[in-house]
């Protein structure tokens, strides 16, 4: 792999950019691998990268039914933060945030991680108490998060309406300054390039249709649209389709697949300095480096694999956006789309071993797993290599739904993410 650098740009500028090489290859699958990962989203590609980099396992295939990064990785609103309430969550999201900070250098790929700050608006006394509880828990755990008065919030985001007569009045906000955004596609591409460089096969347009098991119940490989491919270990990281893939091995996982939508506006000059989230009135907004307002809406109430969603859901979000930021009322929306998110009963992810020997799962990231991409991938690689979870992910087991040791972020935060 030829390194990207300012010198490479200068060199290519002088020869009409004819020397750039493909970022990854598209090989035909081998008959078997040491490890197969199902799903070439950021989590799956990242796991392959860290398996190669940190655990010396390079005979890996990442198998993807569509194109890499075409799932939720390429469809999300890229909010990154780590100010969750419970230790299990703080452990993995903070591990991830630390990796974000060095990811562009590590991958030699600009993932455009931008710690511009994530602000969560508080609208009532319940929000205030809950946010302060989060802030205290975070700070005791060494994670930055601070309380702001409405005036301080307005100084940070000048377009915010903090007047007392606002339809959704604000009584304060929580700000995580290290939170922010990153370029979603670049995350998938950067991991793909770095993994392929270490010998990982990325096999696109190849759907996994079955999981073959031996006499002892252990995995032997996967049936795919390109035929059978053998493997001693299989890691499933298929987001909205995780329960469908796990079912192929006879393992049931507590997931509900729901559409989640986002939309972007026409591009504008820089106007919005950070990320603002309001869980109470349901609005998530930031501005991309292209100038588009990036807006996240809610999930549909029913299970679906349609990759689309109801118009009333985005209308509801735009209603809140227009009330919080009256000057955006005349902005035109350009595109809208949906992704299928995999939601667990306690709204926390599942990463761990399964009852099937050799089968590992990473799923349930639901509406909030982009921020976790490097951290989750890193710990998933550890799990696959060692056969047991890293201590930072030890609480995320599938077994917690039997033992009752839930990680109840949803109830505590009252949010989707």
């Amino acid at each position, binding site marked *: 792999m030829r390194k990207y650098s300012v010198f490479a740009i200068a060199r290519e500028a002088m020869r009409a950019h004819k020397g750039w090489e493909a970022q990854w290859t598209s090989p035909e699958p081998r008959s078997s691998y040491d490890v197969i990962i199902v799903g070439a989203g950021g989590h799956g590609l990242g796991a392959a990268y860290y398996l190669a980099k940190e655990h010396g396992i390079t005979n890996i295939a990442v198998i993807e*039914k*569509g194109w890499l990064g*075409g799932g939720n990785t390429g469809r999300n609103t890229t909010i990154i933060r780590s100010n969750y309430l419970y230790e299990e969550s703080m452990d993995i999201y903070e591990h991830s945030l630390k990796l974000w900070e060095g990811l562009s250098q590590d991958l030699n790929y600009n993932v455009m991680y931008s710690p511009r700050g994530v602000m969560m608006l508080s609208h009532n006394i319940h929000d205030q108490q809950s946010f302060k509880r989060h802030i205290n828990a975070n700070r005791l755990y060494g994670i930055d998060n601070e309380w702001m008065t409405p005036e301080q919030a307005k100084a940070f985001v000048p377009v915010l309406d903090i007047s007392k007569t606002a339809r959704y009045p604000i009584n304060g906000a929580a700000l995580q300054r290290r939170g922010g955004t990153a370029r979603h596609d670049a995350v998938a591409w950067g991991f793909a390039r770095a993994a392929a460089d270490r010998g990982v096969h990325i096999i696109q*347009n190849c759907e996994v249709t079955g999981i073959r098991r031996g006499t002892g119940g252990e995995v032997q490989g996967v049936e795919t649209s390109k035929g059978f491919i053998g493997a001693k270990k299989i890691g499933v990281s298929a987001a909205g*389709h995780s*329960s*469908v893939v796990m079912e192929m091995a006879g393992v*049931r*996982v*507590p*997931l*509900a*697949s729901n559409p989640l939508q986002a939309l972007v506006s026409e591009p504008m000059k820089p106007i919005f300095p950070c990320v603002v989230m309001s869980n109470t009135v349901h609005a998530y907004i930031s501005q991309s480096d292209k100038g588009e307002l990036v807006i996240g809406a809610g999930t549909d*109430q*029913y*299970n*679906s*694999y*349609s*990759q*689309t969603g*109801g*118009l*009333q859901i985005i209308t509801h979000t735009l209603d809140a956006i227009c009330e919080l930021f009256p000057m955006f009322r005349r902005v035109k929306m350009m595109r809208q789309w949906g992704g299928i998110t995999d939601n667990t*009963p306690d709204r926390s992810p599942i990463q761990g071993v399964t009852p099937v020997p050799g089968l590992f799962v990473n799923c349930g990231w639901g509406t909030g797993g982009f921020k976790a991409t490097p951290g989750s991938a890193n710990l998933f690689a550890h799990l696959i290599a060692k056969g047991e979870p890293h201590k930072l992910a030890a609480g995320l087991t599938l077994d917690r*739904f*039997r*033992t*009752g040791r839930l990680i109840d972020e949803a109830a505590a935060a009252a949010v989707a993410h």
Partner: protein
Amino acid sequence: MLLIHCPYCEEDRSELEFRWAGEAHVVRPENIAAISDEEFAEFFFLRNNEKGLTYERWRHIHGCGRFFNAARDTVSDRFLMTYKAGLPKQPLPVAEKFAAIAEEKSVETWEQTEGDAR
């Protein structure tokens, strides 16, 4: 937004009037205190999450207020039928089966278009 047929009101109404209420025909064990943790997890947390035909409950919360059951295709989101609560799982009417197959081919979801566009 979905258009849903309430089998009590016998009308097609907008989704805004309804609340989704999870998988249908999940039976609470009669001896709930005696069952194992595995069985409890199964009853309490594990759902089919089908890709394709699913049986689910809805409640006409801003209408008659009643729960009922529905069969829906989770790929096209098309309702195949709705029926009253308390009835056992209903087989799909034959015509609906064919319609469902035709629908699967005609509805432009990612699964049918980009997903297969090699």
